[in-house]
């Protein structure tokens, strides 16, 4: 076998542009990060296929998180929109986006969330949509609240929306979090800071956007998503 051995590489943060699996400041990573080196599959074996979703998988109402109950949710109504792009900079059409988030008070509709902030009977906090022909997407929701967690004393997560994207290939799958500009909690958050490079971290922060701000109705935030991994050096 030795002549056909696959290359093993230590986990890389690609020059600070991605998190490492092990990030001790984020306590839950300590017992969950793999310790053995990773196996590098040769390019010829890379699987560029992935699942395809269609209009049958989403309803138009899924993209409006403020219209899923009888009443309006409390909080600051916002429009979150942007484009899903491939690493070539071109829009990825027809790909499925899924989002989930805390309500305006910083509470998730989840049995394990024990933060003593109120649930909102008019807010579930989940949405989905397909990108259009140019890779564009648009959600209407409320701005999520910051909330405490038990990672370290007085730990608080900056406000964020969780986001899942499928892209063209299964291995391009991205799950990330979108943050809001100017959050004072950024510098204290080990999850946000797990991306060491400030420019890469900035790619997790949405931009306030006049163009999508709807007069007398909702503030607009813009968040473009680029799929594809940063290449690593192949070393024997």
């Amino acid at each position, binding site marked *: 076998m030795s002549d056909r051995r696959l290359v093993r590489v230590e986990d890389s943060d690609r020059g600070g542009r991605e998190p490492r699996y092990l*990030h001790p400041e984020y306590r839950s990573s300590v017992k969950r990060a793999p310790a053995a080196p990773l196996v590098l599959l040769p390019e010829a074996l890379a699987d560029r296929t992935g699942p395809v979703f269609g209009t049958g998988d989403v309803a138009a109402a899924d993209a409006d998180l403020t219209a899923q109950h009888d009443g309006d949710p409390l909080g600051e109504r916002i429009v979150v929109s942007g484009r899903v792009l491939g690493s070539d900079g071109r829009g990825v059409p027809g790909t499925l986006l899924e989002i989930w988030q805390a309500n305006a008070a910083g509470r998730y509709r989840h049995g394990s969330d024990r933060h003593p902030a109120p649930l909102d009977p008019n807010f579930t906090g989940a949405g989905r949509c397909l990108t259009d022909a140019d890779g564009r997407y648009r959600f209407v929701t409320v701005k999520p609240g910051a909330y405490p967690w038990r990672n370290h004393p007085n730990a608080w997560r900056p406000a964020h929306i969780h986001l899942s994207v499928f892209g063209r290939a*299964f291995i391009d799958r991205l799950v990330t979090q979108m943050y809001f500009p100017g959050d004072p909690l950024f510098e204290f958050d080990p999850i946000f800071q797990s991306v060491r490079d400030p420019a890469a971290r900035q790619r997790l922060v949405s931009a306030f956007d006049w163009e999508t701000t709807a007069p007398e109705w909702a503030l607009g935030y813009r968040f*473009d998503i680029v799929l594809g991994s940063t290449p690593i050096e192949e070393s024997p």
Partner: protein
Amino acid sequence: MTEPTPSQTVGPFFTIGLCARPQQELVPEGADGAVAISGRVIDGDGEPVPDAVVEAWDRAGGHWGRCGTDAGGAFHLVTARPAGAGGEAPHLALLVFARGLLKPLLTRMYLPDEKEANTADPVLSALEPDERATLVARPADGGLTFDIRLQGEGQTTFFVL
């Protein structure tokens, strides 16, 4: 702006967004040739991981599905028996997301009764025997068992994403 958007953890509350509809059947249970796969996601202390989600992709069959783990770290998937393709032995590609994982883990599940194809597989055959063993499911209760060990003794072999 064409630099990739960095990954962030799926967190503890992903079931709201990712598990609201049942998707653990890649093909309907009871479909011709459907095979049930059960397994557990286990951390470096040997403890079950109750907040992970396992996604499966069968490239040859074009089937996709996912399942969040329960309090015991268990997941369940139903799929058509995967076929081989492109000189590779039949397998499923698996992505694991969890609280504590800042980016997903990629692995593969091969079939225990495909000894010949597994021996010739360009990935399996190029791994050490102990690594290879972590990627082959075991027969159980008419279906298959496949545990995913994130760290420590018997850690599952993971691939670079």
